[in-house]
């Protein structure tokens, strides 16, 4: 029979996922600002960031309360520890989106640059990794979490490639230097978002399997179910 504790845990999980969904929306919105110059979306992104800040405080407070009141162990304890970590990771993702917004505002003051497919792709990949990591948390799936970690190298390579292209453009054409610099910073921020998504996936593995695979080269095959 579900207890009050179960109910409280359920509500807390939902809140964390709501915060994650806000982060996803923010990434989608800021990508459209950068790539399609949809400047009107900036206000919505800022509003989401404010909502996230409120949620972060509420989630942290509730997590501490549940630990103090119920002195949880095993899976419950790991869930609450992981929620505090997810909370911090998602908040950092929000910060990175706001950084992108800052760079984008400068970018939008100047004439549009073409050839933004790489940035668009990086943004899409980062958002997908986050979405998958949050799905892994929703379904308590170690396998789904591992698939996120598996794509990290690809995204790093994509970022490296994009960086080299942008540098070539900057060196080749002085007129585009300041815009390209903003794009380099934006690409970097998307790559950092992908890193946070990987951290989220590692945290989910700890939650589900009790294994701490951070700083481990091969996360292993996971537990048979």
């Amino acid at each position: 029979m579900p207890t009050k504790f179960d109910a409280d845990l359920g509500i807390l999980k939902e809140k964390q996922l709501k915060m994650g969904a806000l982060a996803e929306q923010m990434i989608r919105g800021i990508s459209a600002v950068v790539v399609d110059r949809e400047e009107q979306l900036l206000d919505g992104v800022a509003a989401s960031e404010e909502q996230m800040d409120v949620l972060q405080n509420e989630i942290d407070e509730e997590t501490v309360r549940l630990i103090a009141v119920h002195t949880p162990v095993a899976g419950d304890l790991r869930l609450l520890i992981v929620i505090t970590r997810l909370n911090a990771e998602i908040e950092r993702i929000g910060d990175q989106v706001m950084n992108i917004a800052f760079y984008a505002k400068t970018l939008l003051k100047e004439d549009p640059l073409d050839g933004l497919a790489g940035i668009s792709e990086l943004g899409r990949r980062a958002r997908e990794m986050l979405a998958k990591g949050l799905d892994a948390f929703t379904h308590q799936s170690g396998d789904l979490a591992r698939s996120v970690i598996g794509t990290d190298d690809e995204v790093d390579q994509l970022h490296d490639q994009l960086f080299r292209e942008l540098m070539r453009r900057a060196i080749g054409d002085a007129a585009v230097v300041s815009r390209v610099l903003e794009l380099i910073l934006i690409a970097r921020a998307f790559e950092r978002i992908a890193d946070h998504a990987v951290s989220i996936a590692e945290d989910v593995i700890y939650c589900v399997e009790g294994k701490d695979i951070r700083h481990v080269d091969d996360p292993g095959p996971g537990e048979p179910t």
Partner: protein
Amino acid sequence: MHCVETRELNLWYADFQALINVSCRIKHGLITALIGPSGCGKTTLLRCFNRMNERFGYVRTTGEVRIMDQNIYSPDVSLIELRKTVGMVFQRPNPLPLSIYDNVLFGLRIHSEPGTLSRAAEAEAVEKALREVFLWDTVKDSLKNKATALQLEQQQKLCIARLLPLTPEVLLMDEPCSALDAEGTEAVEDMLAALRERYTIVIVTHNMAQARRISDECVFMLNGELIEHDVTSTVFVTPGDKRTEEYIEGRYG
């Protein structure tokens, strides 16, 4: 080093099988907690370690119980020697209606030839035992007082002190704090932590917070079976068996 070991131990109270194929190895120098729901067999298992169960005529066992690598059911094992090596304290402290001094010496006197213990040796044994249980400073000036006048947790410490002059290897504790209040429990737990390295301590407890606080390893039992035995922090953070997880999370039953 494994001081207490069971190999495929089965026990029946008449037709009821209370222990099913229990094999475990309990290490010396640690506190091992036996945990599990009521009726899981933890007290029955504890009582196997000093053959207390055979005081009930309708008990039947198969398998082995080994203390310091000796099978305690072997016909050449002296029950008296076994119960010196393996001491036990119970839920309700049971000081004898004697002075504190005579309580501590009771076991030692019974097991010694008359006239072999000098006054000096006795006094030394009393002080040593009472120091080990953190009682000496409190009672050193009132050793002639009745033991039953002590506070409950002091009585419990005295019951442990009573075992020590017989130089046991193993201390068995059957819910030693459940009759005590929070302060008394804390006092006894602090004492157990200090005793740990010199003895093999096995404690049955239904208080999981206590098991978490003081034990180094935990044995989880359910319906007469040993389900899991591991380092306490592992049992309480990443238990291997779903049944252990459900019990310690409070979702069992």
